[in-house]
């Protein structure tokens, strides 16, 4: 009797197991890891096809593509983890072009010794985030590096989407007189991550704002696409870096009003405590939009009707300024520059 014996495979011990070098070596163990964790978490037809790439249909319009790397520490923080961040961040980069995000890729660099349970948790969160957003992860890659050569897990993602015909948001499109709108309270992601950082742990009732914003951007495009000049998500470097980037690319200045910037008191208090400027603190579920004055109210109203834009506010205007300064009227009635961050934002001695 001809009988092919099925090779014995030790079950992936997700609860207690650790990632080892064999999980990245291209052999059976790697296949088991990909199947047992990633395919299970991301489950879709494209992945099930088992190719090293995915083929898909795209609608008419201009394609948008983005790529991003995630190296956050700690990996798990209140309101999310590196996985949800990777999905949301990449979707948002596509959405800021006014595009509909369609597909994502995800590449993992995993440090030898990383707990399989944590990897599974990250992958499950990514799967949930991508399903919730309706943007599937259709291809990926896994590498394992020796202990000490990475910090747990690094994730690289790419995203593609399509901009509907007629919409062309450009980073150099801001014009004097345009309104600057933020979609909600700033600084929550940065404070949530810092609150769990080793040697800095503090109790704060703040969770990361990490969220996919393509629903909000679609509502904005629907309410006044013709008046939308540009959108940007103020992630690393915070609101300050984003406004300075736009100012320099568009060759305008900005004047913003400190009192008009939405911020939760807990964020203000935590920043005060740490000696940080909340304008430099990262966000993961907020956007900044520059809008022609005639469209500002309609777009603002549409944002406020969306759950992720409830607290949207006009915080200032673009002005003519050859130096491209972002200036702010302080809550105190004086004026100051809102500058780029120099190096890393470091807590002060006193």
């Amino acid at each position: 009797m001809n009988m092919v014996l099925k090779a014995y495979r030790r079950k992936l011990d997700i609860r207690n197991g650790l990632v080892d070098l064999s999980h990245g070596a291209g052999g059976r163990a790697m296949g088991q890891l990909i199947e047992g964790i990633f395919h299970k978490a991301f489950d879709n037809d494209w992945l099930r096809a088992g190719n090293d790439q995915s083929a898909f249909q795209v609608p008419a319009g201009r394609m948008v593509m983005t790529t991003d790397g995630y190296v956050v520490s700690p990996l798990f923080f209140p309101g999310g983890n590196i996985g949800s961040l990777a999905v949301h961040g990449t979707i948002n980069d596509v959405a800021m072009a006014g595009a509909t995000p369609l597909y994502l890729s995800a590449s993992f660099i995993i440090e030898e010794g990383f707990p399989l349970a944590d990897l599974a948790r990250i992958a499950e969160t990514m799967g949930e985030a991508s399903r919730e957003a309706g943007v599937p992860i259709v291809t990926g890659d896994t590498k394992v590096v020796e202990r000490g050569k990475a910090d747990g897990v690094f994730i690289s993602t790419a995203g593609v989407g399509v901009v509907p015909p007629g919409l062309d948001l450009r980073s150099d499109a801001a014009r004097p007189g345009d309104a600057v709108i933020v979609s909600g309270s700033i600084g929550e992601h940065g404070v949530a991550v810092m609150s769990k950082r080793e040697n800095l742990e503090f109790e704060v009732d703040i969770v990361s704002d990490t969220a996919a914003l393509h629903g909000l951007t679609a509502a904005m495009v629907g309410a006044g696409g013709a008046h939308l000049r540009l959108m940007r998500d103020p992630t690393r470097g915070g609101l300050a870096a984003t406004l300075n980037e736009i100012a320099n690319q568009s060759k305008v200045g900005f004047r913003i009003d400190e009192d008009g910037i939405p911020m939760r008191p807990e964020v203000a208090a935590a920043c005060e405590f740490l000696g940080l400027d909340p304008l430099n603190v990262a966000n993961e579920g907020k956007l900044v939009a520059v809008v022609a004055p005639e469209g500002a109210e309609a777009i603002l109203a549409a944002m406020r009707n969306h759950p992720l834009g409830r607290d949207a506010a006009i915080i200032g205007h673009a002005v003519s300024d050859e130096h491209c300064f972002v200036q702010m009227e302080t809550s105190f009635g004086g004026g100051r520059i809102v500058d780029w961050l120099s190096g890393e934002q470091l807590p002060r001695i006193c």
Partner: protein
Amino acid sequence: MKYIDEYRDGRLAKDIARQITALADPDRSYHFMEFCGGHTHAISRYGLEDLLPANVRMIHGPGCPVCVLPIGRIDAAISLAMRPEITLCTYGDLMRVPGSEGSSLLKAKAAGADIRMVYSTLDAIRIAEQEPQREVVFFAIGFETTTPPTAMAIKMAIARDLPNFSVFCNHVLTPAAIQNILESPDVRKLGTVKIDGFIGPAHVSTVIGTEPYEFFAEEFRKPVVVAGFEPLDVIQAILMLVKQVNDGRHEVENQYIRAVTIFGNEKAQAEVATYFELKESFEWRGLGQVPYSALRLRAQYARFDAEKRFDLETPAASDNPACECGAILRGVKRPADCKLFGTVCTPDTPMGSCMVSSEGACAAHWTYGRFREKAKEANAGRAVA
């Protein structure tokens, strides 16, 4: 935010600013030095200059511990950190301060030195406990405010019998520096720096009280108002100084009554006195050698003194000759008077210490206030045209 928002009330600030304008004699000018970088930061960040009349001018003083640390001490810390057995623990402010030839602790870290950024002395103690095979050195820096935590760390190291913890002491004293400025030729003989009064740092006075300022308020006939770091504190202190000058008074007044007393925190002072003693002389960047202006560990605690324990020398090193930090720290020049300011010297490419520390006068002016220079330039251009 309770206890914060009350001191950031713009309406009240404008009211105080109106009082200052009403009281400031238009036929004279008022020059007040805010000694502490915390005040400089508050003035710049909240745009207080915009609220003051033109004849009330603020001069930024040397009160930033990072700014006044000479290059040689940074070089010494870097050489210490590069030793394979050493873990150097430092506050974040010091990471980017340039040493000689563009070196810094940040660059030393990238080159392999074990440098850890800590938020308190207790973090350094914890590292020493957790890693007994390492020699953990705490880079102690700061005015009277940060000295008690260093004293407490030594106390804990003794209590826990930690053989691998020591301190590279750079603690400096405020009154000695103010006295040095008032005795400098610039102020006393040449009259190039006009100082009509001081805003004293409240955090320092929570420890030492207001009493240490009595001597030179009397001796130099300059009013001192000890003030907090919230914008309302600062503007109220300016009003108090204007009133003193108008009245011909030179007293020590306490604006920060919510935390400062005449004699300060005597328990903290006693802890500091247990472990530290006055050093005969210490070099301040910009001020040179200032007698009795710093602390060192007492002889019986020499085993916690990193300089003795590791035979650490402070190499002689000088600033970039074009850098005006020295003059800026003494109030002789303003940041924009320096040729390097905003050209080769910015917070991204700092040449001098005033630009490195976020509390430094140049960094504060660059980060928050440089639009004023541009506005002046533009106005001058229009006037000429």
